[in-house]
């Protein structure tokens, strides 16, 4: 188990380095192919070539990519010192550099925005797990009933409707039409009810999409599990039906769902861009979208690193969990 973990972690680190290299390459090579100088977008309207050159040096864009990648990783573990035009700044580890645009340090941006995204993903996950799995189980137990059919139609709608559509719709109805909720993000530390009010629509919107998927998977898995011999055995023991379903059948049903959950949570932490943009949530997704618009490489790198880490970590956790749930899976 330990050896397995070490191997997986090593692979994860290699993966991260590769991801960072790719981001760097996209950032530098693509504009080069397009014949564009990034530095020009950081100077004023009538800046002269000398100023452009100075900016290029300040941003470190003049160095070869491998030097920049090396500096980037060195900054994370050892910190680094930025010196340009008489402006010397030491950036202590973990140093992800400074935003090209706002000049703020990237690390605090990440730590500031990560909880928002995490709160969004986790809150939505709780909702979609509870409602998706419950709906799926009910559908499986009442297969062919009116409930089952309507639940599956709603689930199909949930899976096919794009999130910006359901998001804008829910804003239009609940926040601006009926004015039930304010739907503005408030940090958790400031007001719990305010935070809930700001998060509830994003949660529900996001959870609607995922609950639909989870309901479908749960239903299919549950139906399959209910046909298993060991379920018949459980009944033959004289177990109550709720124990048979709640314990024996659910445990098997949860296996693929947990796998999915790990992947989805990982992906959401990196990819809740649409939801965050729709609801103006100041999370990582919004930050990276703005950063891409502004060619703000350090923010892009920081968010990419954090979200890749989250995805890799989620996968690792899923693998370990899988082994815990299913004793037939042995990690070696």
């Amino acid at each position: 188990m330990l050896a397995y973990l070490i191997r997986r972690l090593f692979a994860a680190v290699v993966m991260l380095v590769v991801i960072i290299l790719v981001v760097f390459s996209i950032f530098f090579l693509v504009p080069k192919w397009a014949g564009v100088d990034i530095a020009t977008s950081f100077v004023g309207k009538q800046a002269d070539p000398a100023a452009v050159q100075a900016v290029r040096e300040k941003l470190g864009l003049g160095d070869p990519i491998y030097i920049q990648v090396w500096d980037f990783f060195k900054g994370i573990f050892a910190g680094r010192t930025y010196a340009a035009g008489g402006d010397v700044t030491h950036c202590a580890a973990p140093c992800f550099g400074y935003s090209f645009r706002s000049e703020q340090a990237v690390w605090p941006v990440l730590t500031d925005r990560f909880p928002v995204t995490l709160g969004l993903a986790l809150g939505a996950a709780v909702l979609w797990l509870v409602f998706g799995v419950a709906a799926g189980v009910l559908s499986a137990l009442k297969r062919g009933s009116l409930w089952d059919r309507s639940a599956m139609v709603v689930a199909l709608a949930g899976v096919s409707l794009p999130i910006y559509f359901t998001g804008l719709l829910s804003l239009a109805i609940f926040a601006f039409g009926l004015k039930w909720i304010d739907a503005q993000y408030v940090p958790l530390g400031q007001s719990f009810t305010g935070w809930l009010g700001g998060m509830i629509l994003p949660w529900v919107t996001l959870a609607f999409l995922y609950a639909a998927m989870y309901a479908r998977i749960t239903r299919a898995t549950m139906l399959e599990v209910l046909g298993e011999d060991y379920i018949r055995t459980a009944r033959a023991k004289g177990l109550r039906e709720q124990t048979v379903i709640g314990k024996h059948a659910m445990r098997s049903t949860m296996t693929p769902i947990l796998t999915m959950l790990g992947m989805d949570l990982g992906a959401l932490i990196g990819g809740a861009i649409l939801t965050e943009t729709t609801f103006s949530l100041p999370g990582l997704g919004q930050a990276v979208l703005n950063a891409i618009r502004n060619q703000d490489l350090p923010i892009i790198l920081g968010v990419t690193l954090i979200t890749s880490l989250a995805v890799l970590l989620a996968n690792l956790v899923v693998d370990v969990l899988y082994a815990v749930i299913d004793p037939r899976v042995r990690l070696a």
Partner: protein
Amino acid sequence: MTTQRTSGRRKQAMAAAAVVAALLTTAACGGGKDSDGSKNGAAGFDAANNKVAQASLAKKGGTLRFGGAQDADSWDTTRGYYGFAWNFMRYYSRQLVTNKTEPGKEGAKLTPDLATGLAKVSDGGKTYTYTLRDGITWEDGKPITSKDIKYGIERVWAQDVLSGGPTYLKDFLDPDGKYQGPYKDKAADHLGLKAIDTPDDKTIVFHLPKANADFEEVLALTSASPVRQDQDTKSKYSLHPFSSGPYKFESYNPGKDLTLVRNTNWKQSSDPVRKAYPDKITIKFFSNANDLDQRLINGDIDLDINQTGMSPQGRTAALKQHKANLDNPVSGYIRYAVFPQSVKPFDNIHCRNAVIYGADHVSLQTARGGPVAGGDIGTNMLPPSVPGSEGQKYDPFELAGANKTGNAAKAKEELKACGQPNGFKTTIAVRNNKPVEVATAQSLQASLKKIGITADIDQYDGSQTTGIIGSPSNVKKKGYGVIIMGWGPDFPTVQGFGLPLWDSKYILQSGNNNYALIKDKAIDGLFNDYVNTLDEAKKTQIATQINHKVMEGGYYLPFVFEKFINWRGDRLANVYTTDAYSGQYDFVNLGLKSAK
């Protein structure tokens, strides 16, 4: 990379947005009880356009709430270039002179701020002397000295650290770039710039190597604000500028929010310009423009910090339900197409004229949003807010008159004169992140087809504008015969608008704005006359002449004198648009009707 087609996903998004827009329009009829000019309600349509709305209702106190879809490029007075940022910076920064806090044209005029009066100009327009007021202080209570002003101006020279802002001060005071900037300054006090003298703490003297009639305009830019050396955090200054005005930074999270609170060390008696009504000023940034507009309509926020007009959906809803909350000012921007002379056959004036005549100007105006949201048909290249402008009265191509919907016959004639009687092929370059510009490009493409000109549209990465069309060699390589752009004045004079566009000295290998590559001795000469003229009437006259010369050259096809729809919240008092900031509301003296 530079070309991008509308992807399926984006189409889906547009369709979804359209459905939602329809829903929003119906959902937004919450508080539609607007009675014009009422004490608590909206002041009426266009009530603050070039005039003051509800001035007497402004009370001291309260929180003024801005919302925005985009943060400033920088809140550092040296580095910001966005108009709304300059407008907002007056809350926490003062200059020697500044624009009058009055509506419309009057707002474009200068008035003393830190100085006791406008400049004493001597030495044939090459020396400007100011005396500072008494009682002017920093946010920690220490007095603002002439040295602080000099240091603040010197920061413009440190382009390697503080890039992004306008560099007029550097261009006017040290065109050869002899000074290295304060951070590389070997002098002990880092005040080595020769062009500025500070004989005492109350006096500052500027020595220009060459006279420039607009120098005082440039001193009114925020990049001429004082910065105190011990508070200069260099590249990090944008995160917390040190205040010389009535408000100071309380907190700022880039892209999220910004809060200003009263600077208790600022004295009303020292400041003839700022009224400082609210106690607190907040900006909240939204990533969804629809959300922002809905919150404006809902009254959750008072006005849009970006001042670029409402989104199409929000605008539709607002025009229907809340017209009394809207103003329809002229933005000072001209939207146009420009013809780089390096790309054949646009080296020939007749081919350029053919495009100008052939275009359907009404359809271009419609693509921009129509007469209300888009603006009046542009007939020349000087914005209405700039002295010397004649507006639609000067219409050499009769774009708003006889040739409104395009004059194919005249265009064909010009083509013949150009030696291309059967038309030609060319490429229209347009930013991919501006849907309205893409629409105008398509409109232009359609009308050019009628006169035999086949135009491809190349949608390039809009965030790379300076790199792509700012490089004349790239423009030539790509064969961009028509470039769709827009331009507004940095300060409201012909120099502040047109110098980088039309003067041959401003043809740059990168970051070029003279896209047409105009090398006209007459125009260069007129600009030279302009900078040496101190008489306002004469300056205005030269501006008119320059505009005529540019139009006669056939370098530009103007689309519209841009107008936009701006939301004015119910709580606001003392609201007016000003030509100083391209038709935006003048932020600094906005008040609230209630201190609640």
